[in-house]
């Protein structure tokens, strides 16, 4: 998004300052409406705008590059935190498609830890991407349908997950299906690692939790080609309590659930103070 904004700023030909400010406001509205709301994104846009006072486009572009660099550094630091995980000769289950998890696996491999990966299948595209990554990285792997993970519980030593964000109330927003696998592994006392940079925390109060349900009318042939019509429900995300996770790997180190909650509260307080000082369009 930031890279796209940088390109858009280079491409635009708006001379009128007022028109430019009006269009910035439209972009802020757009960024605010993206669900789930990403603090990393919203805050970046406010920072870019405020530091450049909304009209110095060159300065805005410089700020974008600065922010991009800082996020890259965060990701590197998170990967470095992951080095502490002892994964040698272990089997790691992965489920969702997360760059943080992929970077962590690559880092562990770099540090000469020899492990294998079990990919629990979700949708074709994401599973396919995980397979492509593991194949390219020369990491040994097997694939299992996610509803059959219970058959391999004994062979799983730990599980790695990514998340979209972490919300007030101590819940991670994750890919659908994550909660059942995490609960299942939790029951078997398998260590669960979750990888997320703190800039992705949603640092504002959760007003109401709206479930995004996709209802689709479906017709299928069942029993001697008789057509059966029904509603097929699909959910966009799972919300998983932090207490179900053992370790949260961030750029600041590896936290347990309590430390994660504390870190969230502290960041939320700081952000609130900073935002009150910002001039919003």
């Amino acid at each position, binding site marked *: 998004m930031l890279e*796209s904004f940088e*390109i858009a700023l280079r*491409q*635009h*030909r*708006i001379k009128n300052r007022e028109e430019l400010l009006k*269009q910035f406001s*439209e*972009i802020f509205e*757009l960024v605010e409406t993206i669900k789930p709301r990403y603090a990393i994104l919203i805050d970046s846009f406010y920072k870019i705008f405020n530091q450049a006072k909304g009209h110095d486009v060159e300065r805005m572009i410089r700020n974008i590059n600065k922010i991009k660099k800082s996020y890259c550094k965060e990701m590197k630091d998170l990967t470095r935190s992951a080095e502490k995980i002892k994964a040698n000769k272990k089997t790691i289950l992965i489920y969702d498609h997360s760059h943080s998890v992929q970077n962590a696996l690559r880092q562990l491999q770099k540090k000469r830890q020899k492990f294998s990966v079990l990919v629990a299948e979700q949708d074709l595209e994401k599973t396919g991407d995980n397979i492509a990554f593991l194949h390219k990285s020369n990491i040994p792997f097997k694939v299992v349908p996610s509803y059959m993970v219970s058959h391999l519980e004994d062979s799983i030593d730990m599980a790695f997950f990514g998340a979209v964000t972490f919300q007030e109330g101590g819940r991670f927003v994750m890919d659908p299906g994550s909660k059942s696998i995490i609960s299942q592994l939790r029951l078997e006392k398998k260590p669960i690692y979750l990888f997320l940079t703190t800039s992705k925390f949603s640092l504002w109060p959760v007003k109401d939790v709206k479930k995004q349900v996709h209802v689709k009318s479906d017709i299928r042939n069942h029993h001697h080609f008789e057509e059966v019509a029904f509603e097929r429900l699909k959910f966009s995300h799972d919300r998983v309590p932090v207490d179900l996770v053992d370790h949260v790997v961030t750029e600041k180190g590896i936290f347990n659930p309590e430390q994660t909650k504390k870190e969230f509260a502290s960041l939320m307080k700081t952000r609130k103070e900073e935002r009150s000082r910002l001039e919003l369009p």
Partner: protein
Amino acid sequence: MLLHTLLDPYHLPIAIGVFTFTFLAIIFDLFDKAVVAMAGAILLILLGVLNFDQAIEAINFEIIALLAAMMIIVEIAQQSGFFKELNFKLAKYSKGNPFLIFLFFTLITAFGSAFLDNVTTILIVVPITVALVRGLGYNPFIFVVAEIMFSNIGGAWTLIGDPPNVLVGTEVGISFNSFLVNLSIPIGLSLLLVLLAFYATNWKILRPIHHNLPKLLMSNVLLKKIEYQHKNVKLNKAFIWKVLLILGFTILGFLLQFKLGLPIAVIASAGAFLLMLVVHKKIHVHQVFSTVEWTTLGFFGGLFIIVEGLAKTGILEIFAQWLVTSTSNFNLLILLILWGSGLLSTLINNIPFVTVMIPILFTVVGHFSGHPHADILWWALILGAALGGNGTMIGASANVIGVDLARKDGVKITFLSYLKYSLPITLITLVISSAYLLIWATYF
């Protein structure tokens, strides 16, 4: 044999009855069109209108072989990832600008349809256009409608662009080059004017977005997404180059057809089988053959037999004589054939129509054999049938497929909303063709 002797006096009504039923069943989509055509053909043999040998002789295997070969080449080209790569490049170079997206995709559709099957072209371009345009926050309606129309106009340009062209080209013996030489002006002009008409009537949607920062942002976000998805697709460049090389050689073969002294189907088949040999490690031959549209080929085979049945009864000869005697004015006859085939093709499938018209037009052209421009009547039929196909949502297969694809992606195209654009555009293109053919007949 006894049955055949008994039915001998009734061959005329039987042939007309089978033909009428087949035509109506195709128009109203009562059965699969290939099944109807082949069933009609079998019925004519069973009732003794044609014997088996006559029926087999009626089938123009040059057309069947040409279509099958081109389907194989297109399928392998699709498997190579070339079309995906091309679509990605177009999206990238457009920079998300609707003005350029419209220009690139309509022109590539027209050009692609000239050398590939119209339906294949639509199947390739429509899904990515819908994804791209919708991602930018626009309604893809106008883009899809334009692509369908450019596909039909572009398809009219070459011998292999549209099945009616293949029919006329191979039956009459018109070369690939003749199509290019004689149709470049009306098709080029039609493309230009239709393009301008679309820009003029949809300027609000199609104008450049340099002055709209939110739209620029969304375009770039979408392009980044497409770029990311594309990065994960491993392209085999050697495979693509082999496909392009052999496709290029095949088209070169079409252009040099008369110098080579080979039927066009032989050139296409040579291209198809050479391609399969060269890339045999990259393809599954069974799968490639399974993608050949055997139903379309069966439909053609059945139609040839049904039309032969009609011809044998002499009714086509009678109709041709009526057409010739209806006017002594050659220019009027050109317009009659152009507009008649154009208007009929807006509603009925132009393949059976052209199949019936070929034997009729042979008689008419024969009657005007002394006229220096008698051949223009063939061009009137070709242009009318191809451009008339744009007229309504059901006028050509590409229209039906394009509308269906768009509908699957949530773009609503109704018969009337399509007609709002298709009717004036069909009229524009038929007027351009009329002017071109009349100038050709009168001044050259």
